[in-house]
């Protein structure tokens, strides 16, 4: 069986948006920027699990009600 140089991260909360500009806007907020552990790509970012609740509150503050899946 082939082996790959990869690391599996379990139970990581991520935020995903439809357009990269939206993620840029969100990350302009200091709380959201602090909560993001790593931007995974133009439209996705990994969040600190401890900060997830605060992220949801902050999104709601800006009028966003994200889909939770």
């Amino acid at each position, binding site marked *: 069986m082939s082996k790959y140089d990869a690391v599996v991260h379990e139970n990581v909360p991520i935020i995903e948006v439809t357009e990269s500009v939206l993620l840029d806007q969100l990350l302009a907020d200091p709380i959201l920027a602090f909560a993001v552990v790593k931007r995974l790509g133009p439209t996705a970012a990994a969040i600190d699990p401890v900060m997830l609740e605060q992220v949801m509150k902050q999104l709601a503050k800006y009028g966003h009600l994200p*889909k939770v899946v």
Partner: protein
Amino acid sequence: MITSIKLDSQLRFTAETFRPFSEVELRNLSKTWGGSGTWRKTGCIKYILDSLAQPERIRERLSILPEMDMAALWILREQGGVMRAGDLEWILRCYGYNPSGGTTLGYNRCVYVPQLIQNGLLLWDQEDYFFSLNSRSISSHTLVWIDGRITDELMGPPTIVPLNAHPLQAPADAAAYRRPSHVLMDCLAITRALQQMQGLRLTQQGTVRVADVRQFAKLLGWEKGATYAGFTFPNIVEVVLAIWTRCHWLVKGDGEVKLTITPEYFNSKPFEEIVSLMMGSYLARPRVTYPHSDIIYTGEEATLPVGLVYCMRALPEMARTYATSHFAAAAYQRIGDYTMRLRPYYQQRPGLAEKDADAEAKKQWLTIADTLCTEMLTGWMYWLGLVALQQESSEGLIFRFTEFGQRIMGYGVRAKAAKKAAETAGPAWVVQPNFDVIVYLDNVTPEQLAFLETHGERRQMEMHTARYVLTRESIHHGMDTGTSLKDVIAALRAGASAALPQNVEREIRSWAELRERITVHPACRIIAFETSRERDRALQAGLQGRLLGDLYVLAP
């Protein structure tokens, strides 16, 4: 309660269940099914099992059973096929039968149930209790059970000897009652509150934490108790949590009680079935305030309240109006003397036969029965929509069974009533341009109500109508449960039997689009690669997942 019986889920007599019997006993059992009584052990077992596999032979057998046996089988069927011997005899007594005949045996022994066993209709929990077919009595705590194929062939309803209670002449138009839709809405609200709280935390003693009880009560507006149409529901939080637990909708885990259902559960089966389950769970141990008495001893706390509810089923006309005082007097005639004889011998009054002592005992019994009836009627039975009530008069609380209550508590009217309910259909609601949804509770189906509870915010509830409001939050919350925009629009249109106001439809569409813009995955598996080349190689080799960036894959 039934875990000690190792049965398959369908409750079937098998060769294994007959193994403890001797050859002579099995010959007698096979004779009850029409066997010759001359076979060896295996032959007898085969004959009995063959008989149970033939519905016409079971029907033939049932057709010659006396009324009390038939009533006993009906009671077992209603209890899921398993119950304690003592409970079976107690319910039979409430139905007007005398299962123990002239025996002087105490409440701890049953003498009628052994006859059903000897007649091949029941078996007992053989691991729990030693019982021989020659025994004259069985412990009242022993579980007895019946093969589901026998109860499947019961043609109803059973004969219940009417109670000697006279209905009131006064019409009951002024009586207050709760519609099934009110009950459903409250069940959904309770489940949603528990869902929101993510279960309840337990103390080290295993009781629910006071802070959680308070929060739960606050979410449902029960901080100061609950009153419905002027009738107080005593201990509503305690009763509701007990019922949710007994229905296995709340399950105890490690330091917490977890919810096992979602609000959609109430949409998954006929609501009457769910209410029957809730009423049955309540009867397993009604949470009532038991008034103290040194005269009445009922063996167990639940015995008298349960008996009173079963006596209500024996009312001559369930649709008529009765006063609790009249009902208690009629129930006394049937079960009063027996419940007083249940006291341990050292508490029994030697002078029970004396008239004065009898009169005092009867007075106390009637007071207690009236109190218990009032508490059960104004509490759980009213909340479930089973009874319509009028404020207390000099004759006590006045009650009658609602149509819904008759279907739940009565034995033969369910199918007919369900058909009637299905025939009534009209617009269930009107959606107004200001996003209000006015619901007609007479027309709305449980499925539609469950939809609105999930996708709207309930603001007001009257006798015949309810008002919901569609908000962005409520629509988003509903869509979180898995419904699509198309489903939401279609369900709203179907309920209104008309097109939606244009602005409402447009706004709902824009809310749905907004919701799609941001997705949060609370816990996912991410695979991080060193290089994009490595990532491509893994994907080509069959790795399942979706690209999130140059180096990351979201694994399913």
